[in-house]
């Protein structure tokens, strides 16, 4: 892969210039939090953030979007799609992997045209990170990325090592060649190696994934699901914040004139009671335990069986944000029998 070097002091000018020609999305500081948001002149870019509450998916599958407007006798019309190039800067490796997982869902089989348009108009610039005590991407094999980005920046202190992942990425580099250097010398290589090993030593949280999908299959009937779910508020915060939770519902809203209206979709969660409830009152997942189990089964078993990789990328958002303090890694570890069930919760 082509690799170049961007001196640290050139990052701001680099992003500033990109912002002139594109919609630029960055990790932005707001109070104590960091959120992905559109860049504005003078905004504070968080270069060393840990994790955002909402993942990048909100820019590809927005929390709520109008699919069609309709008018009687005229059928369904799509709203004008957003146009123009976007550059999304600052995704950590787990979030890039997560987008690749979403690509399986939305671009294979029937192509979700809404998702595809947003994906196609967006360049991805990754950014290296250091883990906190909730990250377990190294267990999920998502701590590093080798594709799925146009550029990837590794923070080596004085400079960023920039991997070029696509021709579009290369074009960006070439357009701003006055800001980068093509020389990757021994010293930089050494620093990169040190960075990689220092980073991997920092992980605290781990998850043993060997045979996990099979263990989950065998633990389907475990009473432990209901026990853990006693603490679950069914708030949905874990699903909303998960970079690979993609469930949505579709609904219509008619206008006051009764002849026109909108069809929209919005995020939902398998933790909600009505999620598998059908007309007539039959609920295919009647208990909280069955719903919580669905979330973990889908991440670590069902998606794995479909795509050969887990849907969980180990970003730690679900457990960092659960108001009930449910630690999914602990739940899984205890189902493996590696820690006692009473130690959970």
């Amino acid at each position, binding site marked *: 892969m082509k690799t170049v070097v961007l001196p640290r002091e050139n990052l701001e000018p680099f992003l500033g210039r990109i912002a002139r020609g594109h919609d630029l999305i960055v990790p932005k500081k707001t109070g104590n939090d960091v959120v992905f948001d559109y860049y504005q002149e003078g905004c504070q870019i968080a270069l060393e953030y840990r994790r955002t509450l909402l993942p990048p998916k909100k820019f590809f599958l927005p929390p709520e979007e109008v*699919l*069609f407007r*309709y008018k*009687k*006798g005229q*059928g*369904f019309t*799509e709203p004008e799609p957003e146009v123009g190039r976007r550059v999304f800067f600052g995704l950590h490796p787990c979030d890039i992997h997560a987008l690749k997982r979403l690509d399986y*869902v*939305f671009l294979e*089989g*029937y*192509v*979700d*045209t*809404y998702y595809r348009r947003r994906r196609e108009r967006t360049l991805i610039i990754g950014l290296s990170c250091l883990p906190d005590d909730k990250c377990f991407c190294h267990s999920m094999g998502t701590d590093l990325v080798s594709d799925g980005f146009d550029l990837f920046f590794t923070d080596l202190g004085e400079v960023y090592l920039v991997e070029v992942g696509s021709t579009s990425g290369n074009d960006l580099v070439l357009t701003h060649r006055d800001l980068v250097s093509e020389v990757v010398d021994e010293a930089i290589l050494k620093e990169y190696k040190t960075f990689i090993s220092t980073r991997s030593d920092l992980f605290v949280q781990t998850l043993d994934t060997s045979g996990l999908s099979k263990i989950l*299959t065998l633990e*389907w009937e475990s009473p432990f699901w209901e026990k853990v779910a006693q603490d679950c508020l069914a708030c949905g915060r874990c699903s909303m914040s998960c970079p690979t939770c*993609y*469930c*949505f*519902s*579709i*609904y*219509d809203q*008619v206008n006051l004139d*009764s*002849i*026109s*209206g909108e*069809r929209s*979709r919005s995020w*939902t969660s*398998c933790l909600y009671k009505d*999620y*598998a*409830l*059908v*007309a*007539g009152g*039959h609920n*295919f*997942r009647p208990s909280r335990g*069955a719903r919580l189990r*669905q979330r973990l*089964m*889908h991440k670590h*078993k*069902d*998606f794995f*069986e*479909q795509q050969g990789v887990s849907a969980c990328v180990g970003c730690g958002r679900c457990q960092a944000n659960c108001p009930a303090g449910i630690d999914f890694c602990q739940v899984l570890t205890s189902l493996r029998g590696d820690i006692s069930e009473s130690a959970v919760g």
Partner: protein
Amino acid sequence: MSQLLAKTENPYRPVRAKIVDLRDLTPETRLFQVKLVDPKAARDFDYRPGQFCQISALGTGEAPISISSSPTRPGLLEFCIRRVGRTTSALHRLNPNDEVGIRGPYGNGFPVDYMEGKDVLIVAGGVGLAPVRSLLLYILDNRDQFRSVTLLYGARSLEDMLFREELKTLERHPDLNILLTLDSGDTRLWPFRTGLVTSLFEEITVAPKTVAAVCVPPVAYKFVTKGLLDKGISGEDIFMSLERKMHCGIGKCGCCAVGSKYCCQDGPVFTYWDALNLPDMI
């Protein structure tokens, strides 16, 4: 199989269809005959028995509904729609010439090619007749491709039985064996028996190479499949059309998931063997 839409087009976009005729089948269930507005789309629309469409009542919503007509009789599409909630009630308010939106056909449908050359046993309960009627008509129109054909159909009462008149006529068909039962009611009403649909199993003998197609209410699958297994039908040859909550119909929204399968795409027809491998399927 031709889809209504090429893969590059927006798969959520319904096409316009006009209601040609409406007929009440039971107090809650109405037969909708519809025709796609675009003549080319109407001509090209092909499907397999057991597939379904997402039907839009403009302004209210969409609902997955099985196609009740057979692809062997092109032109008009038929849907039996039971009024149970918002969208189905809105569909019931429509009149001939009103428009609905249609996407599909979706799902796998019954494996008619595999069923060829075999004895076919169809088991249906209540509104579950809707998808298997398509199969029944398909078989009738290709009668020489199949060996014996038996339909076991149960409804709560005479009033709740779909296609009563049609079934009475078919009952006399020399190449079909039709057994009808009512949960309760007047037993003297020929040709109806009383009792659950499973009680009809006592009256039939099952040939060695029999495949079964089943569509019954969710709670009944366990009993029906047990009965079929007891009759010697292999789990791989029991095809069940299952119901789940659906929104997208195309494997995106997640809400119809059964283990690693999506009911809307990998189903709605699953075998008993699938059910053994996917917990909570039936």
